[in-house]
């Protein structure tokens, strides 16, 4: 079999083999993290094959496809393949995994075997979700993602509240998943296929049997399951506690990617009209979520809680963007998924570093660290700026496109209002992130920061953080490199909707050359 066909399976199952190997290796010294690092790096290496051998493809088709019958009846296939979005999500997950292992190097001091085995299993399921083109296969990975994460939170949580947080996470994710399963089976009952490209085609040509009411309910079943996983305001009840408890490596992949990807691939793909129908609500929830997340983040004294609400705010941006169904909004939203992965990931990594040193996330006990930890503060400020959406850094491109798209969307009667509300997010996010920087790093030394001998970044931590810092800048300046493979999907979703023509057709001038008015008449 040619490598291009087997590469996706290789990517997904390398961590699985790794997990088995780790389970067999003894839990001695740094053997487990070292082995996990090798496995995750290998996986990352494999994911890099994808952009290197990428072929430009139209929407609805996939690269690196492999389709084998898995179970003949019911008609379930092992069908994997990636388009631009899932390719970059694979690369992103591939990148975050070794960083997560490095971040856990010392942070996880006991039961390493359990931790890294679960971590790799989590990785398998996440990668599996991104490559699956068969609903059933997808669902298997989707549900599988739940278990290792729940155990990770329940076992390696920070406080005594970890069981409760894990249970909450599990219930929040699991119950809507049951709805998803019902929806899936209903679809299968009508179409006798789980194949996503086929279903997308059927949906686009209105061939999915069922009454409008039934399709609407099925689309809701899908959307609710995904929206909880994102999470979309107000379904974020699990997020705060989950983020507080989960160890750094797990929290980096806890929210966002899976749910948003699923909305884009399945909700939009299989239920285009129903998604358009619910778009006004989702746009409103997105805009409200942005402001809500930012305001609550401002109130927090605990770094992790702050990060949790900040995450809610950032994910709401993406929700807003993709539900505008404009090329700008969807493109920006997809790009922002990647950006949030690295910006949010970096923020959690840095908070984890502080916790390793100071044993607290309480900002009231920290303070004045800038003087003693110059490298950490530099990284923290850069990361905060990336999260704030400073131009030239990654998040700006995504947020700008999302907001610009939200102004133009045809799917909300009050698009301008929601756009204005969402844009206040840029003020509020600056307010809470800079307050955080100030409280942790500036001013006089806090109670806790006085007690502990300051240790700046060591080599391992430098290695962990620098790739992200470089990506901030690279993704801020060279966004076209990433976005060109996202365009087909964005075009597909936006052209499906009726985008109004420009209100004022532009007079074409030679692009980007600034010609002064009446120039030359001196």
């Amino acid at each position, binding site marked *: 079999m040619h490598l291009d066909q087997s590469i996706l399976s290789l990517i997904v199952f390398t961590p699985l083999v790794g997990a088995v190997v780790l389970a067999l290796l003894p839990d001695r010294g740094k053997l487990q993290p070292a082995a996990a690092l090798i496995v995750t790096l290998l996986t990352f290496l494999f994911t890099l094959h994808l952009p290197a051998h990428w072929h430009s493809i139209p929407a609805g088709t996939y690269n690196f496809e492999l389709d084998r019958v898995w179970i003949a009846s019911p008609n379930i296939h092992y069908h994997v393949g990636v388009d631009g979005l899932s390719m970059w999500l694979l690369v992103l997950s591939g990148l975050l995994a070794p960083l997560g292992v490095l971040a856990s190097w010392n942070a996880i001091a006991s039961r390493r075997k359990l931790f890294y085995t679960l971590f790799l299993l989590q990785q398998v399921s996440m990668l599996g979700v991104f490559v699956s083109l068969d609903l059933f296969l997808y669902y298997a990975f989707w549900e599988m993602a739940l278990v290792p994460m729940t155990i990770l939170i329940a076992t390696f949580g920070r406080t005594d509240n970890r069981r409760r947080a894990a249970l909450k996470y599990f219930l929040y994710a699991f119950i809507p998943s049951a709805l998803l399963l019902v929806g899936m089976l209903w679809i299968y009952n009508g179409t006798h296929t789980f194949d996503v490209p086929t279903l997308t085609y059927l949906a686009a040509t209105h061939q999915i049997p069922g009454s409008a009411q039934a399709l609407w309910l099925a689309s809701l079943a899908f959307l609710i399951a995904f929206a909880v996983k994102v999470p979309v305001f107000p379904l974020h009840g699990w997020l705060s506690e989950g983020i507080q408890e989960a160890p750094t490596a797990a929290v980096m992949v806890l929210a966002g990617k899976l749910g948003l990807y699923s909305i884009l691939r399945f909700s939009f793909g299989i239920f285009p009209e129903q998604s358009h129908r619910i778009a006004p609500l989702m746009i409103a929830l997105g805009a409200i979520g942005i402001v809500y997340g930012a305001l*609550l983040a401002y109130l927090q004294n605990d770094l992790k809680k702050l990060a949790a609400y900040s995450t809610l705010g950032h994910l709401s941006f993406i929700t807003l963007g993709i539900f505008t169904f404009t090329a700008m909004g969807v493109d920006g939203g997809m790009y922002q998924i990647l950006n949030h992965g690295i910006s949010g990931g970096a923020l959690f990594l840095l908070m984890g570093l502080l916790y390793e040193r100071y044993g607290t996330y309480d900002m009231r006990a920290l303070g004045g660290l800038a003087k003693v930890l110059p490298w950490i503060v530099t990284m923290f400020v850069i990361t905060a700026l990336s999260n704030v959406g400073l*131009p030239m850094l990654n998040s700006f491109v995504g947020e*700008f496109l999302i907001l610009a798209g939200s102004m133009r969307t045809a799917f909300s009667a009050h698009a301008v209002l929601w756009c204005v509300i969402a844009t206040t997010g840029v003020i509020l996010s600056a307010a809470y992130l800079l307050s955080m920087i100030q409280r942790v790093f500036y*001013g006089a030394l806090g109670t806790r920061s006085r007690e502990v001998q300051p240790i700046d970044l060591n080599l391992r931590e430098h290695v962990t953080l620098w790739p992200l810092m470089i990506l901030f800048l690279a993704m801020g300046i060279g966004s076209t490199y990433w*976005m060109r493979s996202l365009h087909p999907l964005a075009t597909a979703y*936006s052209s499906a909707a009726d985008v109004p023509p420009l209100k004022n057709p532009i007079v074409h001038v030679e692009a*980007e050359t600034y*010609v002064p008015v009446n120039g030359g008449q001196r």
Partner: protein
Amino acid sequence: MNPNYLWLIPVLPFAGFLINGTLGRKLARPAVAGIALLFTAIPALLVAWLWSTMLSTGALTMSVTSRSWITVPGFHVNFAFAVDHLTLIMLAVVTGVGFLIHIYSAGYMAHEEGYWRFFAYLNLFMFFMLVLVLAANFLLLFVGWEGVGLASYLLIGFYFTKDSAANAGKKAFVVNRIGDFGFLLAMFLIIAHFGSLSFGDVFAAVNAHPAWQGGFLTAIALLLLVGAAGKSAQLPLYVWLPDAMEGPTPVSALIHAATMVTAGVYMVCRTHVIFDRSPLALSVVAIIGAATAIFAATIGMVQHDIKRVLAYSTVSQLGYMFLGCGVAAYSAAVFHLMTHAFFKALLFLAAGSVIHALSGEQDMRLMGGLKKRIPVTYWTMTAGVIAIAGIPPLAGFFSKDEILYRTFAFEANPMLGKLLWAVGLLTAGLTSFYMFRLWYKTFAGEERFDEAHLGQAHAVVHADEHPAGHDEGQDTSHQGHHGVHESPWIMLAPLCILALLSIIGGWIGIPQALGGSNHFEHFLDPVFAATTHAENAVNADQVSHSMELVLAAVSVLVALIGWFVARIFYLKKPGTLGARFGNSALYKLVANKYWVDEAYDATIVQPTVIGSRILLWGFVENVLVNGSGFVSAAITRLFASVTRKMQSGNIRSYAGWLAVGAAIILIAMTASALHIH
């Protein structure tokens, strides 16, 4: 000059930032300063080359476009720079003044901890500021716009161990973000209406449709104005600038006087095509400008901190520039922008020199009589004070007078024009008053400082500014730093150059009425042609040169009155004014800056915070969001309490249930099968 060299102008300071930012900690101080200066000097030379190229070839524009920055289907933004005459002036101001201030900083900051950090930030600022002025589209302009805000944040918070500095930095960034909010919305509207962010595309589209008046263009213009007001510290967003004085003085000179804060003016001028179509927006610009000018001037009159006086003066002068923009006298506004850059940078640097001489003392009540002690600083500052007061033939007179004259002659709305002119004139008098007040209190009269204990009141600051151990072999003039001392020449040289510029800088814009030929305005004609030609044609007919002369005489008179009042109260009879008005309500109102900060805090910040704490956190988050979780958990538990009885743990009971289940399924299947038959 090859247009591709334009890239070098901003990129070089960025390289300086990267080098100093990553390696600076390990480099010697001269090396750090050398790198920073080198990477500022080369762009300055490049700008000079650019000037000579464009003047010699007569080219009106030069532009360069790189690959795409953001592309989505149906919309794209490139990295593109464009230079026209407006940009040339801005470039000259930014690189020239910027370079001088870099030199000054090398001396001023010599003893500071974090020397490398300071220069890295300064270079970063240069990078963003140059991107801002070179940008050929709104988005790249916004990059510079946000970037200078960032640099400003970092530099204001340079002494981050001081809470006040950290707060000021945060305040500056957040208030700027409010402005950016408007700017962003303006860009979204532009995208929605024009589908492009390129200046060329947008302005051409506007010019091609003379029918577009007001309407969405007003909305765009007003939103842009929000952005400009944030950046240029206009009402109601001026509050961050006075606090920004927490930063080192060179920063105040460069960022908060000469360059960054004028970005709003530059932006309004750059987008004048849009503003021209909206008389309403223009009037708002003018009103805000005039209001800010007089508002800040009144506060400036009663401040005691030398840098704060200058800060309010900056806000006030920026108000003048907005006033100029608002009456469509863009070239006058840019003219004032340039002269203001010279004399305000000079004033700040001189103030820095004074502060340096007094080892960190900023309170004017503890100064006085410094004329003899620091003569170079005294003379250069004098030039600056006269320039800002608007007394000919120094630079400030010409530019300010031009704005006032054009306001008076404002064609579109003569009543408003006259009113704003009166306000502007009053402000001119106030400006003259508070600047001479500053001058007298600092340099004249008796010495009110305690030379033996200089700097002790600022021990905290000093711990940061002057780290223990002067064993680094600095130049000798710093050794006697406990007495009043003149600054080293590395600081005085920029002062002298700027003083010279403050004196002669206005001569390039002498209006025809005064026998000049107004080179400056003609130089900018290609940029503002559409507006100024029309206006000029009308003005030339309606307002004669004699009228212009009369107005100039009036404004000089007002400035002189301001001077004499200050002379009476601060030189001849010091203390009398304070004795009479010190306890009046009006004085308290002004001295407390009209309680604007407190009002904002009480009406916006606190309600938001308290509202979110009670309503969002207390109710929505913990009752609705988490509550729904509890409710569903309770329901689950209810069902569970029933079903758990079946989980007896007895294998045989499980088997029993299994059998029942199987039987039920079998029966159901059979029933349906038989039913079908």
